[in-house]
């Protein structure tokens, strides 16, 4: 792809974010006049319109941006680190472990204690999974080992989640569990936003400076080491960042699949497949895609709002297949 064309696509991608953001704010079950709501908000008037904007619409849109960035960034980082286009937080069982922890908390009724019990559990689940993968693979360090361990974890946690679902005491719990498995941004408040933001920021700060390392990893682990990178340290920082990003995302929105796998894949041609530059592009693309998906979810008519994870998977699958067919020579 020509450099000028690549730039054009990236500029379009960047400008899609404010566009989708506005569309997202305007979407919802009740009509919202943004102008009157904003003026009420600025005047400090607690009108219904102002409350809808500040307590429902804005947090949800901002969460979509942050989670989109975090998931896509995690995917890009894992794919670069493991030198494998199949790697993503969903595939490695990181997201699924978070879901399992959340489901267990819901199952035992601990969720009633406080609003942050479920997110906290989900985050711990993801962190435990990452720590487990890292400690097991630490001795061998090979990318393939990490992926195989991830697949095993994914299978185990999925099975245990289904088991919990099977024993769910009432249909209401079943619905909650369903929410965690498919992922949704509905009914999120400023609480979740302020809970998630610091962890996500820390995750981004850990991942972004690893650009050069990820580029060097495209020559293989041995050569990356010979280029002066401390592999243990770099891997640890990167994987910690991924754990924070994925864990927090799962904690507030459940398992939104495909973003981490698909966004880096879609954007790789724009950066000539350079894993380092792909990080920034993926962050932008992730935010844009999740905003769009969550807007669509709210605009699709139906008795009940669709789960956003359904949309990301439905959008992602065909795109992903198309891309694989287009690039199969390059991917060998």
């Amino acid at each position, binding site marked *: 792809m020509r450099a000028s064309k690549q730039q054009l696509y990236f500029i379009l991608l960047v400008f899609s974010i404010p566009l989708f953001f506005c569309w997202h704010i305007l979407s919802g079950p009740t009509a919202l006049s943004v102008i009157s709501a904003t003026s009420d908000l600025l005047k400090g008037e607690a009108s219904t319109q102002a409350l809808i904007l500040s307590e429902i619409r804005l947090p949800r849109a901002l969460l979509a941006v942050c989670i989109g960035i975090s998931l896509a960034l995690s995917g890009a980082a894992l794919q670069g680190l493991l*030198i494998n286009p199949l790697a993503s937080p969903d595939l490695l069982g990181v997201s699924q472990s978070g879901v399992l922890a959340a489901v267990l908390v819901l199952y035992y009724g601990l969720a009633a204690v406080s609003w942050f019990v479920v997110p906290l559990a989900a985050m711990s689940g993801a962190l435990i999974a990452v720590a487990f993968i890292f400690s097991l693979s630490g001795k061998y360090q090979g990318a393939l080992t990490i992926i195989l361990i991830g697949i095993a974890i994914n299978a185990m946690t999925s099975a245990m989640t289904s088991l919990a679902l099977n024993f769910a005491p009432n249909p209401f719990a079943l619905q909650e569990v369903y929410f965690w498995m498919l992922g949704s941004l509905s009914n999120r408040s400023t609480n979740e936003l302020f809970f998630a933001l610091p962890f996500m920021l820390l995750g981004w700060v850990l991942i972004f*400076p690893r*650009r*050069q*390392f990820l*580029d*060097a*990893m*495209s*020559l*293989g682990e*041995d*050569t990356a*080491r*010979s*280029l*002066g*990178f*401390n592999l243990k340290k770099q891997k640890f920082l990167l994987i910690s960042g991924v754990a924070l990003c994925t864990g927090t995302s799962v904690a507030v929105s459940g398992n939104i699949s495909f973003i981490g796998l698909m966004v880096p894949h879609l954007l*790789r041609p724009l950066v*000539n*497949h*350079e*894993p*380092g*530059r792909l990080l920034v592009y993926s962050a932008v693309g992730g935010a844009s895609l999740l905003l769009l998906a969550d807007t669509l979810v709210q605009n699709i008519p139906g008795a009940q709002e669709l789960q956003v994870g359904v949309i990301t998977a439905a959008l992602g699958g065909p795109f992903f297949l198309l891309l694989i067919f287009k690039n199969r020579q*390059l*991917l*060998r």
Partner: protein
Amino acid sequence: MTALIQASDLCWKINQSDILKDINLTVVGGEVLGIIGPNGAGKSSLLKILARINEPFSGMLKLQNNSYKEIELRSFAKQLAYLEQNAPVNWPLLVEKVIALGRSPYQHHSAKLSQEDKAAIDKAIVATGIEHLLGRVISTLSQGEKMLVALSRIFSLEPKLILADEPTAALDPYHQLLIMELLQQHAKADTDHAAIIVLHDLGLATRFCDKLVLMYEGKIVSSGPSADVLADENLREFYRINCYSDFQQGLIQPLNRL
């Protein structure tokens, strides 16, 4: 002549089994050292330990009289370049990006290439004669072209030492000679330059290496000029082959198995 690399009593194990035993080795400036030996003799393992990719179980390693452990990772990486077997590139990157990766010890924190980086990269591209490959995607190149790009990447670093693991494997004769000539030129370019090359081709080894080291089951069983190391009895004992050799001509041709 001062020693560029000095290895003494190196041992290395995987799961309690010895891979390398009591390796002693010295490389002086301007030297091309060839490491030869049958498959599984420990040649690549030794090269990785010399390149500081793996740490030896015991023993001492020195680069210009400084112990490896005392040299900071990045400054070590600026002095010594490692060329992996087949020089894999795992993403379909552009040729110029692959070459620029050679400069990464100089730019761990900033992605921008400095003036010096660019000058070194241009020089390396001219030295390997691959101007016509710029703009191509690495996965579309032939094995010989890929190896030239890898060498260009190594040269862009401007290292003192180059450690290459079978750089001529799977190449046609033209590229085999070209790669070996480029490595030899680098070793002779300065008094603190040298090259250590793992080789299977005994002809190339006699022709291009100043000194050979023959490995067998993790040990160095013979070292010195090629005529001594590749003596008929060594070839019989460790390679289990008979060869026709003419060291004046730099010729060595395997004839039959024993």
